[in-house]
């Protein structure tokens, strides 16, 4: 697996604050990772994301030591424009990101600065509309769309730049649960089919856990756990930090405390149900 982003002894402090928002981060992100970034509020999640696409240190000023390297480019020495070819960022509130009169124009906007031919632009827009299954929205105004649709358009306008890495800061905060689930399914598809590397800050652990391969748990500017979701959620630290774990993991833990051991911790209700059936079979065959 190739390293696509790496943090080397990286620390960052915002101007005008007294404490470091990130402290001595050492982290390798691999191509194809689908990472959930979680931890108590104020732990540095958003700061970590901004350090990948160059908003830090180019837009948010402050002091830093160490370095962040994205696809061979040192972030502090590369412009955000240059970095935008590799990293796309999606925010909590898509309305802040949308401003064009039609969805098609919205998506094409970023391309206009790349000096592509009309044909290439059209090809890319058509392609992304198709991949995200939003061809039906092409001629609509972004403002008449639902929150879920708006968030898909925001992702389309980023994907059209053909980035390698997608970073998302609580993208489902304003969506209802089913719309959030649809968005996660879409991200999983981009991850699986196009090998897009994804780093997402998200509080809906019970919905996202079945899609990710890795969890980074942060606390006071540091990464305190890094591993497969079930590993991290089973760690004592998760409980101590009060991030909560998906209910299916809770059920697994409570059963284990009562001497009932399953093969592995479930990531979703379907897996838990399968494990329960397996336990029953094992008992009845004894």
């Amino acid at each position, binding site marked *: 697996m190739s390293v696509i982003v790496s943090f080397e002894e990286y620390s960052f402090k915002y101007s005008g604050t007294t404490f470091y928002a990130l402290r001595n981060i050492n982290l390798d992100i691999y191509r194809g990772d689908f990472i959930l970034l979680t931890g108590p509020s104020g732990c540095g999640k958003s700061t970590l994301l901004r350090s990948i696409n160059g908003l830090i240190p180019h837009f948010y000023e402050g002091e830093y030591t160490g370095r962040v390297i994205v696809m061979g480019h040192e972030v502090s020495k590369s412009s955000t424009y240059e970095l935008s070819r590799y990293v796309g960022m999606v925010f909590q509130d898509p309305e802040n990101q949308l401003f064009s009169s039609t969805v098609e124009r919205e998506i094409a906007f970023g391309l206009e600065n790349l000096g592509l031919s009309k044909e290439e632009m059209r090809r890319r827009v058509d392609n992304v509309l198709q991949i995200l299954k939003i061809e039906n929205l092409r001629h609509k105004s972004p403002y008449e769309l639902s929150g879920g649709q708006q968030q898909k358009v925001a992702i389309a306008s980023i994907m059209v730049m053909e980035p390698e890495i997608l970073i998302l800061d609580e993208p489902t905060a304003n969506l*209802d*649960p*089913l719309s959030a*689930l649809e968005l996660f399914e879409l991200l999983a598809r981009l991850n699986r089919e196009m090998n897009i590397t994804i780093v997402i800050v998200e509080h809906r652990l019970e919905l996202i856990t079945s899609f990710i391969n890795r969890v980074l748990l942060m606390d006071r500017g540091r990464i305190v756990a890094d591993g497969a979701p079930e590993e991290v959620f089973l760690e004592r630290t998760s409980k101590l930090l009060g991030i909560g774990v998906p209910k299916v993991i809770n059920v697994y833990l409570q059963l284990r405390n009562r001497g009932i051991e399953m093969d592995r911790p479930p990531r979703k209700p379907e897996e838990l149900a399968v494990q329960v059936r397996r*336990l029953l079979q094992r008992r009845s065959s004894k």
Partner: protein
Amino acid sequence: MRVIEVEDLYFSYNGRTEVLRGIDLTVEKGEVVAIMGENGAGKTTLIKHFNGILKPTKGSVRVLGMNTKTVPVSKLARHVGLIFQNPDHQLFAETVEEEIAFALKNLGFDDDYINERVNWALKFMKLEKYRKSSPFTLSGGEKKRLAIASILAYDPDIIIFDEPTIGQEYLHKQRLADFIKYLASKGKTVIVVTHDVEFVAENFSRTVVMANGKIVADGATREVLTDPEITKRARLIPPQPTQCALLLKDLGVPERVLLDSELVQSIVSLLKHSMIT
């Protein structure tokens, strides 16, 4: 005592599309009620009727006996605190403590009381270290806590939260849940609009579900959230223990499971039973 009485409420923003279509709802003093439903179902429009920001197009809303159509918003505001989904729409002061003091000053309280309430709210929402900070330097979750603190500070009778758990980790949700229970024990009425099924399952005894401007379910949370017809219609995803119990229905797991501890109990007894037979 009925603190909120909604009768056949219709509302439209532009005179054409009706956002609320015949809402009937009664809330008793000290009740804790969750309002759920997909985006656009009319939840936020409904709660904006409770402090008089919106007036019925048809039907009526009475709050503590006051008809919201005739009583001014300023009078209702003393009794009804509404905490909005997006704290950026609510915050504007230079410092965190001024933000909390603002409503208290407007309501004409004396300085000593204001100080006492500001300190209490800062402490309760764990914002003491940000007292002198600008609200805009806070993280999303901290802003949310500040918005809550600034309403709780003036001690209204009815407290309405619009999506309070967004961007909040489990620990803060638990603190919020504990506080809601504490408020209810003091005779406050608490109404919470939320998508968070797990939060509702664990903390609310009554759940109202809306879809397309109507109330499609109103009852015990257990009955409402374990009914696949209702959750499907309102585009809700049932709690994970409920989903799992439904998948194991054929083995004899009860259908109305809501909490993880209940699911654990039924799995344990399922396994015990299989040992015997």
